[in-house]
């Protein structure tokens, strides 16, 4: 089984026209070919390499990671003497990924990486997640290297990054018992020892994914007496130095192969990354944006897996003398799963492309001054990346949950048993719309792009693209949805009441999501009708119904009605 080649939708997204620009920026006129024997010679050669490397990913996922998923879920990691032992299947998966050279894929070649753009890297994450969403957490944490690459000094990069590309695992130690979504409350103490000229960390971190990793990024309070985010700095801790132990690992509902650790820092020696006080406000924000894209990929992989489990079961299971997939009630569920999976994938890669261009330009700006055109380009794509990351994270992770739920429904009673994969997928899906910011927090980040018109601007750009005549009617539906959306934004922002805006924010953001994802699927269907036409039809009609529902909710209620929802608190 090859999880890349059996999903032609992936290659469709890999071959997006914007890739030419992305690769051009990332490869800087293909200069590496003089120094590295594995660097591409030109654009076609680079694209061919992405395709072939993704085939390796697909093969490992189909032949090793997916077959291991059930055992890993059962066995789980263990903790003893302050350290974690992975489930045997997890270890096997990691070994395979290391041997295949799939660690630190996006790092520059001078650090031993593959210099892959975000699109093919995220595609690998999509494929890995379909095989085992829990393993994606361990593998995907290689993304922390990106933060080191962006903000650490040259000496740190030279010491840490080659280890990552050789397979060292990473973790981001952010949350604490009293600092979950509210990271400003982080208390872990960083003290500078003048005599030894180094930092020491003391305190507790909680809910740390892969907390016994080789290289940790740690958010800690370096400025004594401060209370908010401006007193926090970022540190890198090397497991070989010692000082951090795992007190316990959580017993979770899903992604059970991924150890979630409570860490105790006792005089753990660490190095400052970048500048003091910028830990949360700059570095963690960058880290989280990358992580959110990773979770989107995880959600898409889960949706893909749900779709296949549901489809295969419905094809085999016979009731009343025929396969259950022949009943409208069942095939409607399955086409909805497929449509939501395809729509999720569309926004995932759209976002990845935005991130790719602005990150590559930012990287170039460290080497030379950007031209005015390049500066505009950077601004343009970084704004879209900012807008699409929370929108996509919110939409795709909610769909992953709905799809996993529906996959069980298709299985009927069997789906409730431990015998079928859909049960594990359902449990794994449940965390995606919680961690790296709950959907509610994604809405908080996305709503300003509703009110400032970022989404609408992008929607106008989609509208301007011409499509085949047979798809015009779908485009018409989308423009009706857009008109309703515009009216809603008007209604909700008019009273200039922030509570009112917050109250309807999710509805507005979802409307934007349906329209954006509908347009993306329409363009996919225009280019590749065989793969996407059905999903475009199904999704846009589904989205229209959702937009109408939200429209009715907002227009048929009054601002005063909010009082019925507000809790009555007696102090």
């Amino acid at each position, binding site marked *: 089984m090859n999880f890349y080649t059996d999903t032609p939708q992936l290659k469709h997204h890999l071959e997006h026209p914007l890739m030419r620009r992305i690769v051009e920026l990332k490869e800087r006129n293909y200069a590496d070919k003089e120094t590295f024997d594995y660097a591409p010679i030109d654009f076609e050669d680079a694209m061919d390499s992405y395709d072939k490397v993704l085939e390796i990913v697909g*093969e490992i996922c189909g032949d090793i990671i997916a077959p291991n998923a059930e055992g890993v879920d059962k066995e789980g990691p263990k903790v003893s003497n302050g350290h974690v032992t992975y489930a045997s299947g997890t270890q096997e998966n990691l070994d395979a990924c290391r041997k295949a050279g799939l660690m630190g894929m996006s790092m520059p070649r001078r650090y031993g990486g*593959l210099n892959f753009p975000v699109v093919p890297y995220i595609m690998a994450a999509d494929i890995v997640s379909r095989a085992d969403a829990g393993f994606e957490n361990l593998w995907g944490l290689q993304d922390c290297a990106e933060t080191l690459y962006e903000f650490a000094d040259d000496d740190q990069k030279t010491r840490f990054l080659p280890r990552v590309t050789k397979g060292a695992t990473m973790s981001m130690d952010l949350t604490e018992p009293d600092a979950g979504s509210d990271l400003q409350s982080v208390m872990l103490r960083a003290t500078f020892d003048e005599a030894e000229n180094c930092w020491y960390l003391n305190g507790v971190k909680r809910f740390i994914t892969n907390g016994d990793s080789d290289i940790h990024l740690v958010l800690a309070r370096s400025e004594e007496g401060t209370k908010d985010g401006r007193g926090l700095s970022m540190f890198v801790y090397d497991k070989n130095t010692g000082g951090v132990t795992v007190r316990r690992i959580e017993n979770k509902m899903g992604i059970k192969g991924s150890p979630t650790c409570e860490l105790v820092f006792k005089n753990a020696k660490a190095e400052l990354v970048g500048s003091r006080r910028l830990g949360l406000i700059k570095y963690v924000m960058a880290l989280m944006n990358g992580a959110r894209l990773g979770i989107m990929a995880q959600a898409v992989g889960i949706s893909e897996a749900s779709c296949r489990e549901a489809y295969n079961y419905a094809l085999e299971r016979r009731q009343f003398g025929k396969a259950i997939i022949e009943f409208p009630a069942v095939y409607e569920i399955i086409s909805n799963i497929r449509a939501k999976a395809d729509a999720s994938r569309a926004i995932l890669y759209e976002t990845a492309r935005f991130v790719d261009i602005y990150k590559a330009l930012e990287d170039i700006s460290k080497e030379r001054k950007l031209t005015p055109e390049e500066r505009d380009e950077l601004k343009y794509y970084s704004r879209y990346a900012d807008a699409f990351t929370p929108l996509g994270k919110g939409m795709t992770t909610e769909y992953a949950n709905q799809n996993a739920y529906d996959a069980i429904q298709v299985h009927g009673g069997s789906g409730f048993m431990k015998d079928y994969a859909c049960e594990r997928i359902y449990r794994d899906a449940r965390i995606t719309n919680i961690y790296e910011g709950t959907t509610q927090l994604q809405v908080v980040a996305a709503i300003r792009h509703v009110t400032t018109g970022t989404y609408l601007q992008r929607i106008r750009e989609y509208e301007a693209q011409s499509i085949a005549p047979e798809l015009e009617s779908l485009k018409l539906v989308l423009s009706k949805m857009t008109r309703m959306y515009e009216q809603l934004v008007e209604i909700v922002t008019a009273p200039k009441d922030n509570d009112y805006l917050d109250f309807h924010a999710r509805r507005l953001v979802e409307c934007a999501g349906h329209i954006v994802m509908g347009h993306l699927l329409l363009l996919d269907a225009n280019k590749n009708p065989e793969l996407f036409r059905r999903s475009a039809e199904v999704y846009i009609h589904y989205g229209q119904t959702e937009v109408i529902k939200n429209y009715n909710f907002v227009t048929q209620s009054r601002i005063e009605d909010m009082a019925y929802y507000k809790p009555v608190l007696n102090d």
Partner: protein
Amino acid sequence: MTLNIIVLAKQVPDTRNVGKDAMKADGTVNRAALPAIFNPEDLNALEQALGIKERFPGSKITLLTMGPGRAADILREGLFRGADDGVLLTDRAFAGADTLATSYALSMAVRKMKDFDLIISGRQAIDGDTAQVGPQVAEKLGIPQITYTENIEHIEEGKIRVKRRLENGVEIVESPLPAVITVNGSARTCRPRNAKLLQKYKHAKTVTERQSEDMDYIEIYDRRPYLDLTEWSVADVGADVAQCGLSGSPTKVKKIENVVFQAKESKRLSDSDVEIDELMRELIENHTIG
């Protein structure tokens, strides 16, 4: 210590995933319908070689295969997984070879390579299932052979220790080097292709491939000699044409039949001569053999 290791590999039709069009009406294998793959046990053999290279850095692995031009695919496949070099033995005169002619050709190629410490191959290929080629190569080269290897346990100057997987258990044996080792499917599976090696070697081609294909990157071959896959003909290895291919193959296929295997209970015999005689008689009487 470093070792020169030759891995014998074969490109085979993927008979494990047989669809309904796998056989032609005349009962022969429809090669077009089956993807050509690296013979699975030869991959186990390659993994054993790669394990040695890890233990003894600087060791060199050369893949040797005999086949038509497209068999260069498995040389690339081997390079992607960590082999250092590949040799394709290809010539019209090699066509139609049975195991005897194949082992003759391979042994001549090995002689041409001269310096080697170890030859490793899969136990057998999934298209022929003979398990003869490895041992015959050893005989032709006049060196020891160890079959049914599950793991190469230890290597030191001039000596190798191997675990063999047999029907009722394992056996640890030692042999002087050079030797031929054939590896079972029960040995650890081969590591995946490596992303960097794949990008490094994906343009590796034989001369024939470079001449026959529309080449995009013709200029890189001057600067990257490792992209040149060696191709040897009958003349290149100094082989006697009469002992090669069809003319060197005493095996003649008389008839091919489609047989539907029916699982039946197995029969267990003791090692007494009487029981073996009885079985022989039974097999001859029901025309299973003879």
